[in-house]
């Protein structure tokens, strides 16, 4: 069968809502786009441990420390679910990891911002994980089976992440004057970067149309961003925090909240690698990867010797 005919049949399967599984025929470009998207997503989960890990030792109570530890451990788990799903497309884990430690693979820009106060940990749970849920709930219906299944698993855990963040920031917003200031300050700093998590405008997003045609994504960046704003404005009001956007206004006609233009120069600048923490993040990941090399080798050697010993004994 020629490629064109196969591509046509592939599109018919997608349109009929069928899921694509690892061994099914797929256009080379579908495979490539998925590998790009899924590996970026996995890298983001792993890098996401760093800004929060920064506060584990300084958590305000034992309870919050336990919660933060569990959350950071989940982020590692999320990275592994997605790497595992991406490997079914024929790329090795090592290749993916090295593409971002030594190459130019991207990860979510949100993690290139620093966590200056503990309120940032609260705001990350509420806003960053909140935005991630909006995106991942959509991806849970993605056309690639392994990706969609990993998202179902992640979404279940992500709601714990968001709720613990929202609970904490609500408490701060209801606390002493100093705590209130701290909470508002972190919302001021994390609001726009959180909106940037949905990516560029649809008109500036070269991959969107293709990904939607293949049902890898089911909604556009702007649609998802709007959904997030609508939801979050209500949550902010409920706990008396302000969204730092003078243009934010309810639109009676559309039933949505209109909001101001994002600082796109900053967005592109961070993507290009010039964010506050870009270099630091890569340096930390590289160090962990290289310092851990001997452990990986030793474990391999240990398993080899153990197996040899077992063979001799039998």
């Amino acid at each position, binding site marked *: 069968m020629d490629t064109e005919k196969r591509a046509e049949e592939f599109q018919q399967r997608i349109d009929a809502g069928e899921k694509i599984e690892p061994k099914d025929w797929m256009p080379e470009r579908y495979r490539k786009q998925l590998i790009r998207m899924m590996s970026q997503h996995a890298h983001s989960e792993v890098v996401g441990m760093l800004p929060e890990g920064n506060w584990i030792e300084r958590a305000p109570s034992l309870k919050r420390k336990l919660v933060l530890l569990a959350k950071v451990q989940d982020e590692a788990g999320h990275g592994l679910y997605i790497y595992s799903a991406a490997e079914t497309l024929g790329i090795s884990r090592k290749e993916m990891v090295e593409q971002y430690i030594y190459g130019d693979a991207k990860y979510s820009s949100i993690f290139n911002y620093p966590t200056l106060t503990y309120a940032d940990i609260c705001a990350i749970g509420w806003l960053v994980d909140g935005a991630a849920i909006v995106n991942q709930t959509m991806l849970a219906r993605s056309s690639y089976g392994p990706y969609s299944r990993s998202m179902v698993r992640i979404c279940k855990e992500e709601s714990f992440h968001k709720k613990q963040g929202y609970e904490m920031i609500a408490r701060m917003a209801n606390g002493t004057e100093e705590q209130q200031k701290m909470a508002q300050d972190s919302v001021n700093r994390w609001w726009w970067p959180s909106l940037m998590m949905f990516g560029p405008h649809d008109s500036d997003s070269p991959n969107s149309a293709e990904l939607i045609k293949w049902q890898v994504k089911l909604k556009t960046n702007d649609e998802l961003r709007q959904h997030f704003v609508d939801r979050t404005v209500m949550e902010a009001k409920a706990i008396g925090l302000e969204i730092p956007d003078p243009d934010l206004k309810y639109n009676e006609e559309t039933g949505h909240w209109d909001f101001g233009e994002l600082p796109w120069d900053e967005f592109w600048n961070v993507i290009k690698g010039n964010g506050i923490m870009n270099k630091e993040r890569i340096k930390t990941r590289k160090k962990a990867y290289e310092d851990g090399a001997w452990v990986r080798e030793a474990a*391999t050697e240990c398993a080899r010797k153990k197996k040899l010993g077992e063979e001799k004994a039998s």
Partner: protein
Amino acid sequence: MSENSSNKNEWPLWEVFTQPKSGKPHQHAGSVHAVDAEMALQNARDVYARRNEGVNIWVVESKHITSSTPEDMGPFFDPANDKPYRHPQFYSVPRAVKKRS
């Protein structure tokens, strides 16, 4: 799952199956990398059962799994297609009996 030179020293890949509750069948959860079966079990527990998602875990090295291919989906499962008499709906029963069931 092919071994190319760039992943020569990568730990082998294992498929993980978890049993959600006793009495239920095991289900595929995902995969992990590990040097041996013992480490694969431990990694699988840490990755796929942080919230009691499983009471039992199986791991098997991915290279040992044989799967039917999508290409022969039709012919491979063909023998089952023309045997409706294997299903209870194929048979009719007297109306009186039907009502009671």
